[in-house]
């Protein structure tokens, strides 16, 4: 797709591109290449001398049990958040799609948490489940659970997952509802005429037709869990206790800042970049397929 009529001007297009290119080079390409370069260096404790060490940072990284733990935490965390927020949002969206009179009002009331900052969402959930003053901690204690997300790793991960799911439901709901409303009524009516009950219609007609939306949301949700949940984790647990909620992104932050291990942190950044590029490539292959339909 190209315009057939264009301006012929030698200098102007470069001037128009200049602001974005300058900012992109200064704040994207230069730092990203620095990350790659730093991942091959080892700095001394004062950052005065740095020495080329080849793949040593990567070898150290992949010899660390903590890194595999962060990978496991990331995997468990993404699976739980994506599975829960997608299925809960799909449940709500299918109900809102039932031609209800108040569907518009429900939509407004469901989508606004998108605007809540992840860190604020984390603080809200921490407030509810804080061991000593949380309103929902008492019933849990009453039920015989020794609830303490500050000390118990599983409790901490549960809390972070709940806050992340809560934050993501609105986004998934919006896209699922749009996807459901795009399914032609005639297809569903045809199923009904053939005698398919609502549940059967959902699994054999609606769910397959919704699969492009579901796949798109799956990728977006994984990216969300990787990056945007940083604020939630930092506000709720700070990666603890004992690394139970330290995801790969959180570890980049923690190792570089608190540990001061810039080479190791840079190597982790490069691993993450590879993962993001893979995810984006998957997303674009899917987009291209959608265009062909």
């Amino acid at each position, binding site marked *: 797709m190209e315009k057939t009529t264009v301006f012929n001007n030698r200098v102007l297009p470069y001037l128009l591109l200049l*602001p974005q290119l300058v900012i992109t080079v200064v704040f994207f390409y230069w730092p990203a290449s620095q990350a790659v370069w730093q991942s091959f260096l080892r700095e001394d404790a004062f950052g005065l001398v740095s020495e080329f060490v080849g793949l040593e940072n990567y070898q150290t990284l992949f010899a660390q049990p903590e890194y595999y733990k962060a990978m496991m935490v990331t995997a468990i965390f993404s699976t739980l958040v994506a599975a829960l927020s997608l299925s809960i949002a799909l449940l709500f969206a299918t109900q809102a799609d039932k031609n209800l009179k108040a569907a518009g009002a429900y939509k407004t009331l*469901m989508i606004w948490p998108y605007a809540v900052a992840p860190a604020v969402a984390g603080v809200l959930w921490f407030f509810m489940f804080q061991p000593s003053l949380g309103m929902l901690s008492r019933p849990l204690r009453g039920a015989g659970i020794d609830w303490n997300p500050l000390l118990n790793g599983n409790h901490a991960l549960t809390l972070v997952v709940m806050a992340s799911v809560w934050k993501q439901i609105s986004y998934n709901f919006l896209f699922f509802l749009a996807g459901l409303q795009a399914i032609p009524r005639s297809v569903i009516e045809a199923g009904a005429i053939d005698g398919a009950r609502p549940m059967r219609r959902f699994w054999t007609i609606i769910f397959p037709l919704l699969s492009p939306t579901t796949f798109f949301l799956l990728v977006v949700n994984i990216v969300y869990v990787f990056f945007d949940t940083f604020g939630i984790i930092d506000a709720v647990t700070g990666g603890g206790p004992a690394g139970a909620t330290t995801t790969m992104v959180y570890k980049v932050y923690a190792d570089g800042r608190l540990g001061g291990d810039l080479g190791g942190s840079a190597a982790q950044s490069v691993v993450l970049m590879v993962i993001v590029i893979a995810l984006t490539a998957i997303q674009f292959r899917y987009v291209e397929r959608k265009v062909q339909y």
Partner: protein
Amino acid sequence: MVEHRPLSDFIAYAILTLGIFIVAFPVYLALVASTHDAATVVGGHMPATPGSQTLENYYRAVFVGGSRTSREPVANMLINSFVSAIGIAVGKIFISILSAYAVVYFRFPFRKTAFWIIFITLMLPVEVRIYPTYKVVADLKLLDTYAGLILPLIASATGTLLFRQFFMTVPDELLEASRIDGAGPWRFFWDTLLPLSVTTIAALFVIQFIYGWNQYLWPLLITTKDSMQTIVIGIKKMLVTTDELAEWQLAMATAVLAMLPPVAVVIFMQRLFVRGLVQTEK
């Protein structure tokens, strides 16, 4: 016609009401907590209805700051958040509408290269390059400045792609007509293209305002002075007090204030918001 059963409608209303309850409950609790005094909130037996300390809590949070922690008052943080969120939204729209205009309406050497240079930034979120970017910003002496808060976040391909997509749908006849009228690139941009782009600009503004307002990691890294903090990182810092109890009622009042502007944007500009969200994700 699909069968219509009252029971199915009833179940739908019940499930949706439950959903709205789940979605609203944490925020409701924060609202309630922001209206009680410190002892009631910390005691762990906070009632489920608002208390009587509303004005005092909000007044202290906004203008005075916490007494135990000598924190900045929230008024200042709100200003910082507004400046950086609007700066990010306006900056992103400005640089991306110009670059999209260049890529779509001009033919010049390295056009494709320029497009790809911008496009690839989709794959480099700030989280994967935080420390090198921090170093660049430090070297440019931009720590603790609005420019440092804004500039690294405005360069991304989203806006350029969005405007490019929109410009492609603008009929070629409009450009031909302007050229017959003797309009140059600037006249065409101001008189024809910009007025047509108003909705797209507004939709992008809404999304980017929310994005900018809710930033956490980047402001956390580059602001060292309390006076440059945004409200989102301010709340977190209120809760990390060393030896004394956190003032939860003030933190919750701050949380409510931090949610108010972006939530208001979503509710009152819902159509633009939905449009922006759907378009930027394509």
